[in-house]
C-alpha cells in the first residue's frame, strides 16, 4: 500500500522516458503522485494540495537545473519544501519565571502524562528542581499514573485527590513550589476534545490563572486528517508555544507534523519515541520529511540530484 514515493514517481515518468526536461505536463502528472503520497502519509488533503502546487511552481522555475532525471529532482524539491515547512529556527522551551510553569494539553490518549514524566526527567537532568502536578481530575487513576511516573524519574508529584478544580489545584501547586524551592512546575491536564466547550474553557482558565512560560500541545503522530482541526482549535483557545509529537517509535508516516505546521505557526519542540521515561528526542525537520515521504534513501537521492 505504501509504495516508496520514488517508485511511484518512476511509474509516473515511465511514459515520459527520454525527456530530460521538466515540462508542465509531466510536472502535473508527478505532482499528482506526490500529492497522493502525502495524503497516504496523512498530510491533510488541503495542505497536500497547496504543498504540491508550490512544488509545481518551484519545479518549473528550476528547469535549467536539470541534469539527472526529473523524478529525482522533484523528490529533492519536495523533500526540501517539507523540511522548510516544518523547520525554521530550533526553539528551546522557555523556562522563564520563578518557578517557571509548563502547561501540557492535548486530546485523550495522545501521551500527555507520559510526556510530562519524560519532560520532568529531562529538566531534572539539567539540575533544576522540578515539580509535577496532577490536574487530570477525570480519568480513572490519572493521578496514580502520574505518581508512578514521578517516582520512576525521582520527581515529586503534587496532588489534591479530593479537589475537582484544576484551576485551584494548579494555583496551589505553584504556591507549594515557591515554598519548597521548586524551580520548574509541569502541569499534566486531562485529555479533551477541541469541540468540548466546557473542557476547552477549563484549560483556557487554567492557562489564564497560572500564566505558564511554556504551553505544549501534545499530539499523537498517528493522527489523520483531523490533526488540522484539533491543532487550530487548541491554538485558538490556549495559544500554545510548541508541539510534542508522540509515538514516533511506530511506523506511522506522521503527516500530521506538516498539517499542524501549515495551520499554526508553532514549532515542534519534542518527539516522543517510546513508553519509557528516557524516550524523548528533539525534532529534526529533515528526518521527518524523509519519513513522511517514506524514503530512507532520500539523502543519497538528494546528493545525486
Amino acid at each position, binding site marked *: *500500500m*505504501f509504495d516508496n514515493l520514488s517508485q511511484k514517481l518512476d511509474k509516473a515518468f515511465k511514459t515520459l522516458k527520454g525527456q530530460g526536461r521538466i515540462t508542465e505536463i509531466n510536472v502535473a502528472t508527478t505532482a499528482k503522485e506526490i500529492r*497522493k503520497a502525502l*495524503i*497516504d*502519509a*496523512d498530510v*491533510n*488533503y*488541503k495542505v497536500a494540495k497547496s504543498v504540491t502546487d508550490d512544488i509545481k511552481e518551484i519545479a518549473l522555475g528550476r528547469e535549467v537545473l536539470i541534469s539527472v532525471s526529473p523524478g529525482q529532482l522533484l523528490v529533492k524539491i519536495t523533500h526540501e519544501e517539507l523540511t522548510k515547512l516544518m523547520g525554521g529556527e530550533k526553539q528551546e522551551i522557555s523556562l522563564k519565571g520563578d518557578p517557571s510553569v509548563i502547561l501540557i494539553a492535548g*486530546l*485523550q*490518549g*495522545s*501521551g500527555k*502524562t507520559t510526556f510530562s514524566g519524560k519532560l520532568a526527567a529531562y529538566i531534572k537532568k539539567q539540575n533544576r528542581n522540578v515539580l509535577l502536578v496532577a490536574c487530570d481530575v*477525570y*480519568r*480513572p*487513576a*490519572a493521578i*496514580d*499514573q*502520574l*505518581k*508512578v*511516573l514521578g517516582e*520512576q524519574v525521582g520527581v515529586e508529584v503534587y496532588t489534591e485527590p479530593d479537589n475537582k478544580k484544576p484551576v485551584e489545584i494548579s494555583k496551589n501547586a505553584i504556591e507549594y513550589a515557591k515554598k519548597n524551592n521548586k524551580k520548574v512546575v509541569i502541569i499534566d491536564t486531562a485529555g479533551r*476534545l*477541541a*469541540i468540548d466547550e466546557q473542557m476547552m474553557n477549563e484549560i483556557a482558565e487554567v492557562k489564564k490563572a497560572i500564566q505558564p512560560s511554556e504551553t505544549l500541545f501534545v499530539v*499523537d503522530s*498517528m*493522527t*489523520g*486528517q*483531523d490533526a488540522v*482541526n*484539533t491543532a487550530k482549535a487548541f491554538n485558538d483557545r490556549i495559544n500554545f508555544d510548541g508541539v510534542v509529537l508522540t*509515538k514516533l*517509535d*511506530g*511506523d*506511522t*508516516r506522521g*503527516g*500530521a507534523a506538516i498539517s499542524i505546521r501549515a495551520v499554526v505557526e508553532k514549532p515542534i519542540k519534542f518527539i516522543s519515541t517510546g*513508553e519509557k521515561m528516557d524516550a524523548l528526542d528533539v525534532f529534526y525537520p529533515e528526518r521527518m520529511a524523509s519519513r513522511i515521504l517514506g524514503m530512507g534513501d532520500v539523502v543519497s537521492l538528494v546528493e545525486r540530484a
Partner: protein
Amino acid sequence: EKTKTSFFSKLSKAVLGKTQVDDEVLDNLEEVLVTSDVGIETTLKIIGRIQDRASKDKYVSTSELNTILKEEIAALLVGDTVPDSKEFEIPETGGLPYVIMVVGVNGVGKTTTIGKLASHYHKNGKKVVLGAADTFRAAAVEQLELWGKRVGVPVISHGMNTDPAAVAFDAVKQAVDMKADVVIIDTAGRLHTKVNLMNELSKIKRVIQKFIPEAPHDVMLVLDGSTGQNAVIQAREFTKATEVTSLAITKLDGTAKGGVVIGISDQFQIPVRYIGVGEKMEDLQVFNKHEFVDSLFENAN
C-alpha cells in the same frame, strides 16, 4: 442538517441532466472521503464504482446518486446492514464464559471500552469478569479496577509488572468458577512494530486456550477514530498476531470521522462492532453502517 444537504445538492447539480458524472463532482467527493481518513486507495475504489454505475445507467437523479453513493460505501463495511438489535448480546457458548480479549496500540481507548462494555453487559443482567492483563503501563491495573468498581463487576489482577498471560489465565479460570457469562481481558497498549510485545499477545491467547480451547471467542481490536492510514497497518499486524475478529472505533464524539475503517473492514473482512462516543460508561454504541456513512457527509459542503 442544512450543511448535509449542501454537499449533496452540489453533487447532484453537477450530475443532473448529464450523461456522466463530471470531474469536479468527483474531486469534491474525493475531498469529502479523503478528509474523513478513508484513504486514497479506498476513495478511488469508491469513485470508480460510482463512475461505473453512472456511465452504465447514463442518467442518475439526485436521490439515486445519494443512494448509490451510500450503498457503495456501506457495501465495503462487513456485517449486517442493520444490526438486528441495539442490545449488547453474547453468543451462546455452551455454559462456559464468552471470552473477549481486547487489543490495540497505545492510548486508543481499550480500557475505557472494556469498562463501557462491562457496564452494558452488566445492565443486561450478565455476569461479567474483567482481567487486568495490562501489567505494564503506569497505574493500568488501578484504572481497570476503578472501572470495575464503577460498574460493579469483579476485576482479576495480580498487580503491576506480573505476567500478563498468567493474569489472563486466572481471569478465565475464575470466570468459569464463578459461572460468569463473559470475561473481558484488558491488555497493554503496544505498537505493532514491537515484535516481542506482539508475540506476548499470541502467548496470552495460547494460555487462555489451555483452559477453554475455543477461546478467546472474540479478539477485539480497538482503533482510535482519529488515527489516519496507520490504522490499516495496525489491523494487518494485529490480525497476523491474534486473528482479530471484531473492531471497535473510539473517540467518534470528536471531529474525526474514522473513515479509515471502511478500507480496513473491506480488506480484512472484519466487522465493526462498536463505536466509542465519549468517556462515560454509557458512551458506547452498537455500530450502524448507515449512520456511520451518513456521518461522513455531515458538514460537507
